[in-house]
């Protein structure tokens, strides 16, 4: 398992696997299987996959720490960029069919409908994360600044869940489920942060005492 994960084909495999949702949609398109309301179906599917890939991305660090699999870090960028890919498609299925590619009309909608406000905010927040995802940018920004930018993915995931929750008319079970998953993944990080802080504080006081 660890050998495969560290091997050169693992990333190719993950990349190809991540393309599958889009390929399925294209296949369904050619077979007239996009339901009676294809626009809504495509918006919904691309939105779903955005949230899923955000969750996959947020899973990498907890999994590599808990399962002791540091090799997993290699897949974080691929998964994150696919989240951005699907959110771009999701945005296009809105900007095109719903707004006829009219940016002014879209901005009016962003102000008018709260669920679009949070959705658009999440999309805009993801853009700098996608742009600065390369090693070159890590060097240019320095570790701390880069990490600060990339930590905004937590907010993106939360906004994405709220976007979904607010758009649903009655059956909120699915958005709540995504919220639950995002909640767990963020809670894990929060707990880690608390533990580290405590450990640091203890080390500090111990150091003072020894002196």
């Amino acid at each position: 398992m660890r050998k495969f994960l560290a091997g050169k084909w693992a990333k190719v495999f993950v990349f190809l696997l991540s393309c599958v949702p889009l390929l399925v949609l294209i296949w369904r398109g050619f077979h007239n299987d996009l339901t009676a309301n294809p626009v809504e179906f495509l918006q919904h599917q691309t939105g779903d996959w955005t949230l899923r890939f955000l969750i996959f991305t947020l899973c990498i660090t907890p999994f590599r720490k808990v399962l002791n699999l540091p090799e997993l870090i290699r897949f974080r960028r691929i998964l994150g960029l696919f989240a951005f890919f699907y959110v771009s498609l999701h945005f296009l299925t809105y900007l095109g069919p719903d707004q006829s590619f009219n940016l002014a009309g879209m901005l009016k909608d962003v102000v008018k409908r709260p669920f679009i406000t949070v959705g658009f905010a999440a999309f805009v927040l993801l853009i700098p994360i996608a742009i600065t995802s390369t090693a070159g940018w890590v060097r240019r920004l320095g570790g701390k600044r880069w990490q600060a930018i990339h930590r905004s993915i937590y907010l993106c995931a939360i906004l994405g869940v709220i976007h979904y929750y607010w758009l649903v008319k009655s059956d909120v079970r699915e958005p709540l489920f995504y919220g639950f998953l995002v909640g767990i993944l963020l809670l894990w990080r929060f707990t880690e942060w608390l533990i580290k802080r405590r450990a640091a504080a203890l080390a500090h006081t111990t150091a003072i005492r020894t002196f």
Partner: protein
Amino acid sequence: MLIKNKPELTYVDVTPKNLYFNRRNFLRGLSIAGAATLVGERFASILSHTGSIQANSKLATVKSNYTVEEKVTSENDVTHYNNFYEFGTDKGDPAKNAQNFRTSPWSVSVEGEVKTPRKFSMDEILKLAPLEERIYRHRCVERWSIVVPWIGYSLSTILKFVEPLPKAKYVAFQTFYDAKQMPHSYNTYVRRNSSQSGRRSGAHGHSLEVRLQKHQVHRENPFAIV
């Protein structure tokens, strides 16, 4: 001082007559041209469906004045995109979970301020008057639509038959509810599908549905099941 405003629209801007008389095609052309240039012809053809209705034992119908000359949406699409929360909240759930829903024998009971309160069996209902086939284009407020053929006759036919008394003012409908056949029957909308193609068959077999003409909103249609 008289300040004249330059008119925003001039005669040059007037839509040519032949275009606005063909407005529907004009709009379809505009939107499909827009979509097609970006995602290709294929997508546009998905948006304007060709229909193909299969019938097992077709009902005999007469032509109606209430009809549109448009391509009927494919039966697969219409029967797999429904809101019937008793069968689940997913759009595809009714098709999945209503396969064993019994639509026969079916009876409709008319009671209250009528001279002859009685029960009708489905066969009797079908024989009360010549069945019209109407083709409706349903437009959702969420900017999608489908074209569906419906078979039936005006409610007034049944009402005249049962002879409402002078003091009768309203028609009230009570829907069918069977928790055993409806796995998710926990919500307030209770509506059911009717024979959209005149076919007698499982999930979308005969049941009664009253269509109220004016306020046709896809999700909140006041379908009434008697």
